[in-house]
């Protein structure tokens, strides 16, 4: 069974005991992203910290992959600045859609999502929280024009 490649122990752990789930009262931008075919949903809020980093909070429902991915995203991106956060998102996309080798420094437990790449229909589940973060951060004006 290849199933264990996707559902690694570490993914199931995040799924069962998600990190950072629950919305902060205060926020600068809130987005609601959905995956209309399967019903995954996430509400995500961002607010800027004084040091230029971004704090994130979320609430969601969905499959194990999207929930674990949200938990991992929280670990990796919370309190990063936009540039670093965006780098992590890009890196996840590269790993899932272009089979690039993952970098544990950037993705943390996210490297365990590598097995998802074999199931194109699930890639969207894994990306959902990360894309929501990027959208929210841009809406909050945290992307600096160059």
């Amino acid at each position: 069974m290849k199933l264990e490649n996707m559902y690694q122990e570490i993914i199931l752990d995040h799924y069962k005991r998600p990190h950072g789930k629950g919305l902060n009262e205060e926020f600068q931008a809130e987005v609601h992203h959905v995956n209309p075919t399967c019903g995954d949903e996430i509400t995500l809020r961002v607010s800027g910290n004084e040091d230029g980093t971004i704090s994130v909070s979320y609430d969601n429902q969905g499959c194990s992959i999207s929930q674990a991915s949200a938990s991992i995203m929280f670990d990796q991106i919370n309190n990063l600045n936009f540039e670093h956060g965006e780098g992590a998102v890009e890196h996840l996309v590269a790993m899932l859609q272009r089979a690039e080798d993952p970098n544990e420094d950037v993705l943390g437990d996210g490297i365990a999502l590598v097995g998802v790449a074999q199931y194109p229909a699930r890639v969207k589940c894994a990306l959902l929280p990360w894309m929501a973060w990027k959208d929210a951060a841009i809406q909050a004006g945290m992307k600096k024009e160059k």
Partner: protein
Amino acid sequence: MSTLDVAAIRADFPILKRTVRNDRRLVYLDSGATSQKPYQVLDAERDFYENHNAAVHRGAHLLAEEATDAFEHARANIASFIGANADDLVFTKNATEAINLVSYAFLNATLKSAHKKALPPGSERFILKVGDEILVTEMEHHANLVPWQELCDKTGAVLRWIGLTDEGRLDLSDETLFNERTRIVALTHQSNLLGTVNDIPAIVKSARAVDALILLDSCQSVPHMSVDVSTLGVDFLTWSGHKMLGPLGIGCLWGRADLLAAMPPFITGGSMIEVVSMAGTTFAAPPKRFEAGVPMAAQAVGLSAAVDYLRVLGMDKVAAHEHEMTKATIAGLQSIPGVRIIGPEDLVDRGSAVSFVIEGLHPHDVGQVLDESGVAVRVGQHCAKPVCTRYGIAAATRATYYIYNDLDDVEALIEGVHAAKKFFGV
């Protein structure tokens, strides 16, 4: 088991010979989304292209004659499958377009009337006033809901809907839903998520009492049971070819002749006109009025072969065969702790779509484990998000059956559900 020789049927479907993940045999339980195609259908379509291909109704040469003949024979054959006349059957690209065609007949009649433009005699039935009502149900596929929402948004008509009981049936207790403002009742024959088969005679009676039109979305009925418009009492029937062994890219609208004749066109262009000048255009009679552009003739020929295939099996036998599998599925699922069936659990007026959720497990994950063992089900909202909302679920896992399935497939499903629970430890 049953009335169909499933082994012989399976031999006609090339895709069933392939294996899927982990070299498992394909257990295809997603015919509600689209059915597989037998050789007979693929061969008919290919024969058209290899021997008779031409633009139909547009030429006088031999190929054009043969193609036109094949196309119109297909129309007549498909029409006769639902007890209709060829002239009253319109080809569309899918059921979704067929439903939109009717909703846009209302829109276009309303607008043309407002701008004092020519309309066919009888078109008053399609002219909406602000406050007129369109009645749907809470169990509609998005294809039979969103077009009516859109129509209301653009005309000031009001969308109303028949709610659902906890058992997954229409709640017909509010009789005021049918009233003198009701212009059309658009509902599904069989719910693609719940499996419920609706009580059409009751709906027809209520709709007729207030002189409303009735559109029946038959996507999940024409492929699975005997449907005869000459006795049903509805005004429009819409369905897709690809769910009944036919090719992708073809759908059907049947309409009562007087109503089709009274409807302004939807998509306009070549082949649907009578006389064209730069200043204005007059339109052909139905069904051509609604078939602008070069049509999907090869697909019509394929769908005609599909109809022949089903006719030989007999639609009553098809329904009986599916009924056996439905019964076994419901019994099997009921025996598993934590499984909740969404839709009727009794077997009366119920088709073979069986949806369920498992306590503590997301359908996407259930589907993945099933897929790993070769069982292809659909997971998600099934283009029926309001049904999910009604029953408090984000999504569901759905098995749907057809002529090439048997009780072994049911068993594979039930085993897969056990495996999913085990894998995720719930």
